[in-house]
């Protein structure tokens, strides 16, 4: 089962002929992912290590049955790629691109309401269901199949925590990188909902950071609806207000969006919040014992 992606996922890589597309599409395929097509306008007929390239997503879908898009299009035209994927009725769109203007994303979010497509990202490392499918840039070798669902706003911090879980023999059902942008596709709540219904997930790890109120809203959702245990981590306890810490969305505005407020909201909702990545893995281990 897992969530979002599994053995039935068939991926079309948008901008497969770019630097990152060329690197990651074959890596995803080597992991076992069905990478069936690439798209770069004007490059139909070419191939990237045997993966056929098409001019449009619609062509790729018609010829290969792709149902998921992986977007490596640069920020100036990434939203166009997302629109094209949604208009081609792809079930899932995973956008890795960092640097998309937030007003462009606002329009995307508005357009996708009521559409069948689910968006993950942008500015995210992608999604992996260990042993089944890897769509994005998460290093597959640090993951191992298992029963922990993970959702995170950060890339390498996710790797760190997944690695600590794997070292303790705790495998993962699916790891979802929701991305570090202020306006994004699915968030904690949607991921928690999916993990809550997934028969292969026993526990959820959520990794948040400063900025916005995604974690606070997730806490309210957990208190109300979540039966499975949730372990949390929040990065940025020492981040000063008003400074953007790398991610476009990681900024404390006024007194809102602090790590402390987020951790407290989660703890009030019954979430065990680790103060270090190692402690998160320990808490997960204890909750599963």
């Amino acid at each position: 089962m897992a969530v979002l992606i599994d053995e039935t996922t068939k991926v079309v890589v948008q901008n497969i002929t770019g630097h990152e597309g060329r690197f990651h599409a074959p890596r995803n395929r080597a992991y076992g992912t069905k990478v069936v097509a690439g798209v770069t306008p004007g490059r139909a007929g070419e191939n990237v290590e045997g993966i056929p390239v098409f001019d449009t997503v619609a062509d790729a879908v018609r010829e290969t049955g792709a149902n998921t898009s992986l977007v490596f299009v640069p920020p100036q035209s990434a939203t166009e790629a997302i629109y094209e994927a949604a208009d081609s009725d792809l079930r899932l769109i995973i956008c890795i691109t960092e640097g998309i203007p937030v007003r462009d994303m606002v329009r995307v979010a508005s357009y996708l309401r009521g559409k069948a497509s689910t968006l993950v990202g942008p500015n995210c490392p992608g999604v992996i269901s260990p042993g089944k499918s890897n769509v994005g840039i998460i290093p597959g070798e640090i993951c191992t199949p298992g029963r922990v669902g993970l959702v995170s706003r950060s890339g390498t911090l996710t790797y760190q925590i997944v690695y600590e879980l794997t070292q303790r023999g705790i495998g993962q059902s699916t790891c979802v990188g929701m991305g570090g942008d202020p306006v994004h596709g699915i968030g904690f709540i949607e991921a928690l909902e999916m993990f809550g219904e997934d028969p292969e997930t026993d526990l959820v790890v959520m990794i948040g950071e400063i900025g916005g109120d995604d974690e606070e809203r997730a806490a309210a959702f957990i208190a109300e609806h979540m039966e499975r245990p949730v372990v949390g981590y929040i990065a940025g306890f020492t981040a000063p207000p008003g400074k953007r810490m790398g991610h476009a969305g990681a900024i404390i505005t006024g007194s809102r969006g602090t790590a402390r407020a987020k951790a407290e909201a989660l703890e009030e909702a019954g979430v065990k919040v680790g103060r270090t990545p190692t402690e998160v893995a320990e808490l997960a281990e204890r909750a599963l014992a």
Partner: protein
Amino acid sequence: MDLYEHQGKDLFARHDIPVPRGIVAETADSARAAAETLGGTCVVKAQVQVGGRGKGGGVALVDSPDEAEAAAARMLSEGFKGMRVVRVLVEERLSIAKELYAAILLDRSTGTDLAMVAAEGGIDIEELARTKPEALCRVHIDPEIGMHPYHRSALMGALTGALPAEARHLVENILIGLYEVLTQEDATLVEVNPLVLLTDGRVIALDAKVAIDDNALYRHPETEALRSAFPVDAVELRAREAGLQYVKLDGEVGIIGNGAGLVMSTLDLVQRAGAGAANFLDIGGGASAEVIATSLEVVLSDPSVRSVLVNIFGGITRCDIVAEGLLAALQRVTSNVQIVVRLDGTNTVEGRRVLKEAGHPKIVQVATMLEAAEKAARLAHGEAA
């Protein structure tokens, strides 16, 4: 990118939002000249990106060019709340009948624009939202349809009684202008606190706070150019030129890592270990040896750094490349600072071997992130690793 008040007001003026007559001065002499031009009685305002200027001496009401010169000299030499002041804004003094508040921001949790007005101005708006939430009128605007008259009517409802009937359309026009700034200039926040009704019946933006989306600067080169007016310290400038995500902090452990979340987490662990981070530095994904070398040079050029922590979890970043970059930097700069290095992920074995074989006396390799934080903290305090 947060604009300075005078830059925000220039943007306002371009969108037909009335602002006071004002002149920017970088020296006390030119502040004096500005005051003469404006008729002597005026206001001198320190240009800093921090609130609380009114109470903290960052705004001076002056009655003559002499006083303007003295106020500007004080602000330019003393700074404000620890921040350097390199410019003051000298403005005409206006006769105020009523202070109001108006702002429009991008509300990230709903993905819509949020307009807010209050019949009180010059106040701490978070404080008002906490203590008198009913005084702050909030109206969400779906960006698909934009701002319409009914949105403004809803906002104006909050100002009933606070404004004479003939001033209402002036405030409405300002709301139109603010929405234009937000949408056309790729701002994420435009705030006027206070927006003032003058005794002569005009309505004018007495202050301007504008935040622009960094990701959208490529389509606003004229806004991007405003950055050159910002005072930056030499280390920050160097980092920016190298394309690194760098934020100066006030601790003593220099931090280099890959990925924003991992770096933030590293800062937190250093604090738990009893020290403070001197900076946030994210080398991004797939960094080259040259980027690593420049990062280390940047961090070592900060005089407050007592130890350095390099925390890498390689995904697309390769640990062997990181190791080579660190060694390259140490050939270019001499430093007495110890560098604690933790490498994991892609090509870990090769990376660790490269460092081990080089045997550089300044590099201390450790196995985990926790151990790295503790060791770097101890070194920063002058203790043995």
